[in-house]
């Protein structure tokens, strides 16, 4: 077993443990922090796969952006420091059965797929090639989904401003 395999197992164990802790803790602020560690672990797995750019994006967007937003919204709610009430038995059963169902589906797909070991050269993962593909409209580029998503985000931003703006009465 090589060093990178050992590191992979350690990092994935951390991701799973922190993911489980963020679900099972009853303090909501701690749940956000555990989720943060889980997401950082996923960035670590990207780095192990030599996907530096994706790892940095993961940290910048999920950790630096979304977790900060989650923490801010926790701060703005009342009694965020108290423990959450224990979940009802009905809900535990429902949640557990949903989780088990999801696990069965994933495992089913996982065991049906025949994973092939290829000898092809790895894909070019530099920021330059990602940028080229993102704006390419010839060779299976992604300019179309990219533009649609940017348009959607712009619409969402304008919508937020329309909702938040105060119209001054004369």
């Amino acid at each position, binding site marked *: 077993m090589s060093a990178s395999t050992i590191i992979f197992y350690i990092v994935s164990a951390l991701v799973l443990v922190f993911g489980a802790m963020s679900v099972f803790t009853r303090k909501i602020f*701690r749940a956000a*922090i555990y989720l943060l560690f889980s997401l950082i672990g996923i960035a670590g797995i990207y780095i192990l796969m030599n996907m530096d750019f994706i790892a*940095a*994006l993961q940290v910048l967007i999920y950790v*630096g952006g979304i*977790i900060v937003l989650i923490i801010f919204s926790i701060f703005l709610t009342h009694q965020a420091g108290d423990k959450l009430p224990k979940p009802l038995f009905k809900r535990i059963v429902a949640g557990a059965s949903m989780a088990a169902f999801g696990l069965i589906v994933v495992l089913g797909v996982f065991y049906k797929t025949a994973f092939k070991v290829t000898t092809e050269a790895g894909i070019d993962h530099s920021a330059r090639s990602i940028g080229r593909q993102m704006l390419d409209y010839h060779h299976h580029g992604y300019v179309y989904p990219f533009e649609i998503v940017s348009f959607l985000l712009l619409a969402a931003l304008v919508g937020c401003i329309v909702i938040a703006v105060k119209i001054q009465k004369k």
Partner: protein
Amino acid sequence: MQLSISLLEITRAIDSWLNSIFHPHVAFGIELVLAGVAVILLVVAMAVLMVYAERKLAGFMQMRLGPMRVGKYGSMQAIADVMKLLLKECLVPTNSDKMMFKLAPFVVTVVSFMTIVPIAFARGIQLWDINIGVFYITAVSSLSVIGILMAGWSSNNKYSLLGAMRSGAQIVSYELSGGLALIVVVMMSGTLSISGIVQAQADGWWVIKGHIPVIIAFVTFIITSTAELNRAPFDLAEAESELTAGYHTEYSGMQFAMFFLSEYTNMFVLSMVAATVFLGGWMPFHIAGLEGFNHFMDYIPGIVWFFGKTFFILFLIVWFRWTFPRLRIDQLLKLEWKYLLPVSIINVLFAAFIALMGWYL
């Protein structure tokens, strides 16, 4: 024949010496430990030096002498302060979230140390030549706000929470203009890696050959990095007259020292980034055509150039602190969202146009 010894040769000599004694894997492990120790020593030495320099400069700017009692010209003052902080007790408030309270200083310190990794100090002296260097620093330094929010929340104190909220809002909003300012230079040099950006400035620093867009980006970057550091005139997150000390009100002893250390580390790292991206890193100052002058400049080692530029930016940031009065929160947000952000977006377009036409030198 070259008479001088460069840092690169010293590191190569250490590397071949270790490899001749140990197995390559063991040698690699030892090198990692050595690099870590070197970074910690550098940061601690710089923090002590910066605290002393800042107090002295503040004194001179206010017609005082600054610290004078401990050692010659007060030169031992910062070390005495460190000893005092080491000996103090770390108090933990009773009704706080104790685990988060103790974790927060570590998060802040780890994040600020991680940002040093891709910095190039001299030719070939770089811990990790990652091909997305500038982007890595931006991404990792956006984590420090989490540590601040953790500290403010877990202290269970209204001053701390308010300070953390202000600090979070400030860092999140000023990150945008700071990132856009870096994008200007990234576009012109066509690479994200720190060594690539330094290499692109071999024939002139970006602030000189990049014309107006890079000068605007440089000024924006200095303003936003001062704001991200929570330093005056943007220090309302820890405004002592309103909020006692902001998010680290409840911290004492070594835990407070870790916040203090990470604040100075962040200041050091941001100055190093500004020196690398805009002022050419370890590249000497050259004037095209003056061969003798250029040769003379080449004799000054890269590390001297690099630290000279870094100290220049540090001096600017200290100078700001003792010159401008503190902003109000609405003025702070107005400055970012109504002035800096539109200016930097237009500046990025302008710079893209210049980079496309190849109008920089």
